[in-house]
């Protein structure tokens, strides 16, 4: 059972990490709580379905098209919906909820409520510590690791990354130093949604594609980022792994309570908020200006 928990927690945690990194990044830089984050993930899954299954394009081309299309769409949404109300946090929250619901209803109208399946990019099963793991799940693990490395490189080894970190550190000072904080925020939105789209494209072949597939991951992502610390990428990764393992332990130790997976994640979120509101690696609220 120990090996099962070890492998299942790692694979599921990596999928959560892919989603949580982007969510955390956009909050850390632009202070945008993007509730539509997982709705973009859902859209990427639908774009992949349309390109791969309906139009018969190749896996790689379909995946790239899905990620690029959703990223471009996010920029349009940012300019039209989020930017005009960016100064009002509550308005941003409501606007992104509205966006998510619009995407959900559009998907429902266009594709219907049926559950759709996408073929795996790599077929077959690998044997890890005596546990059968489909190759597609190991691919998710690889993509998560690659994306994590790429995000680190972007943030710590490029001028854009420097600008993003400076803006995240102090928006006003970055603005006073002549940085175009709006453009930085826009670039961050693109990166953040791009990460969500990569997550959607990677996990869609192992999950079921439907218009409501964004809701459950949203709860998990919120738990992950609160646990890891809102705005902290390192925290998102650690938080994702913790939630992945807690869920696996719940199912293995308490099989009759498997449906409580989500509730356990939410309970962790509430406990962390009470005991350490800034999360494991987040910035303490008192330190913020």
């Amino acid at each position, binding site marked *: 059972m120990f090996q*099962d928990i070890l492998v299942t927690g790692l694979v599921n945690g990596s999928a959560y990490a892919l989603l949580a990194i982007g969510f955390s990044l956009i909050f850390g830089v632009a202070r945008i709580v993007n509730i539509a984050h997982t709705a973009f993930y859902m859209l990427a899954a639908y774009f992949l379905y349309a390109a791969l299954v309906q139009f018969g394009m190749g896996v790689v081309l379909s995946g790239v098209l899905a990620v690029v299309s959703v990223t471009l769409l996010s920029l349009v949404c940012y300019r039209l919906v989020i930017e005009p109300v960016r100064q009002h946090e509550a308005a941003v929250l409501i606007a992104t909820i509205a966006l998510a619901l619009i995407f959900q209803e559009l998907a429902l109208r266009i594709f219907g409520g049926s559950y*759709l399946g996408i073929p*795996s990019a790599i077929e077959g099963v690998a044997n890890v510590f005596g546990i059968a793991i489909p190759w597609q799940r190991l691919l998710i693990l690889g993509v998560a690791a690659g994306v994590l490395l790429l995000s680190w490189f972007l943030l710590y080894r490029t001028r854009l990354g420097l600008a993003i970190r400076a803006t995240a550190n102090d928006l006003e000072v970055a603005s006073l130093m002549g940085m175009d904080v709006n453009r930085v925020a826009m670039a961050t939105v693109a990166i953040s949604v791009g990460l969500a789209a990569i997550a959607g494209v990677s996990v869609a072949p*192992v999950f079921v594609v439907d218009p*409501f597939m964004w809701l459950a991951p949203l709860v998990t992502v919120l738990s992950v980022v609160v646990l890891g610390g809102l705005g902290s990428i390192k925290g998102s990764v650690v938080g994702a792994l913790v939630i992945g393992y807690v869920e696996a332990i719940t*199912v293995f130790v308490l099989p009759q309570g*498997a*449906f409580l997976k989500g509730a356990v994640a939410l309970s962790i979120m509430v406990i962390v908020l009470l005991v350490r509101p800034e999360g494991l690696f987040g910035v303490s609220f008192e330190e913020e200006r």
Partner: protein
Amino acid sequence: MFRILVVAAAGLLAAPTVLAEDSIKIAIVGPMAFAQGENQWAGAEMARDEINKEGGISVGAKKRKIEIVRVDSNEIQSVPDATNAMERAVTREKADFVIGGFRSEAVLAMQEVAMDNKKIFLGCGAADAKLGANVEKDYERYKYWFRVAPLNSPGLGKTLFAVLGSIAGQIRTDLKKDTPKVAILAEKVMWTEAIVKAAQANLPKMKMEVVGLWQPSPNATDVTAELAAIDRAGADMVFTALSGPVGVVVGRQMGERKMRAVAFGINVEAQKDGFWEATAGKGNYVATLDTYAEVEMTPKMIPFVKAFKERYHKTPTYNAGTYDAIHLLKIVIEQAGTIDANKLVPLLEKTKYVGTGADLEFDKMHDPIWGLGKDTGIAVQWQNGKKVPFWPTEVKGMKKFGLPGES
């Protein structure tokens, strides 16, 4: 000239109202954006077209056409939406009868609204036993409720155990296992409670060992942990009770893991033609209770399934029982010569109707009476992209149940 035009225009405007007043209005209430609602609507359309083609329903000396009204309950997403939909069907649409419903929690709420308004409500989706128990408990209030499809959950349980016994027999013979190990995988919702309890009590009596109970959410998108645990427990069979999208996930992930255990039970998603595509071709060997296939369960089943496939290009699910529900209404309305609900209820209670899916006869809870040759449903299994019927074995057209690993 102007006056003539005005009168003609008024006449044209009034014409539909006259027709509407003359017709019998039946509200089809269901989750219309989903397969369940689509099937309910499709079954109702077929019945309406057949009956209207023959001039309609004879109410006394008068022939009245059927008008069906599509009411989206959105109940898969929201129970309150379902109650509002039922209110709309009864008060705004002024439906004479209501047919449909899918999710037990929503149908229980909708049942209250229909009973408040003394409307005959023929269920074509929910299995929870409480819907029928209400009739027994408070007959005067709930007598307007009848369940056309599916069987109630204890009835479904009876069929499940009959099929399970047959599969266990095959495992004993083919795999040489005297006591097959069974994992129960049931989503955590109201309708599965009775089935889970019955499975835990009955399977050991049927010489099967229950290795555990796993209860994911009906909307779970990932059951790898559950399946890994089931694999670890050495299960030969996975007894499923799933109605939500988790049914697709279970089918797909069992296939991906190449599990040696075979899944059988209720898997509503596996009843749909789209299951094979939804599992990306991984749902081989998944078996479920079902209602319709091209087999001779009743004399009407094969012609109905063929006509449905020709018109809608898919096999009907049990929700298409709206077809039988409307025909049943026609019979009792013609007998009574009225659409008065209080006069129709006693007739519905007495009627024996050979439907497309079963020989319908209601018990004192207004549930279909279970029994071989009456109403049991059928069992089907996905084999290489095709849904193959395999139970009741004595019915003409049934095929052999397949076990993973068998050629």
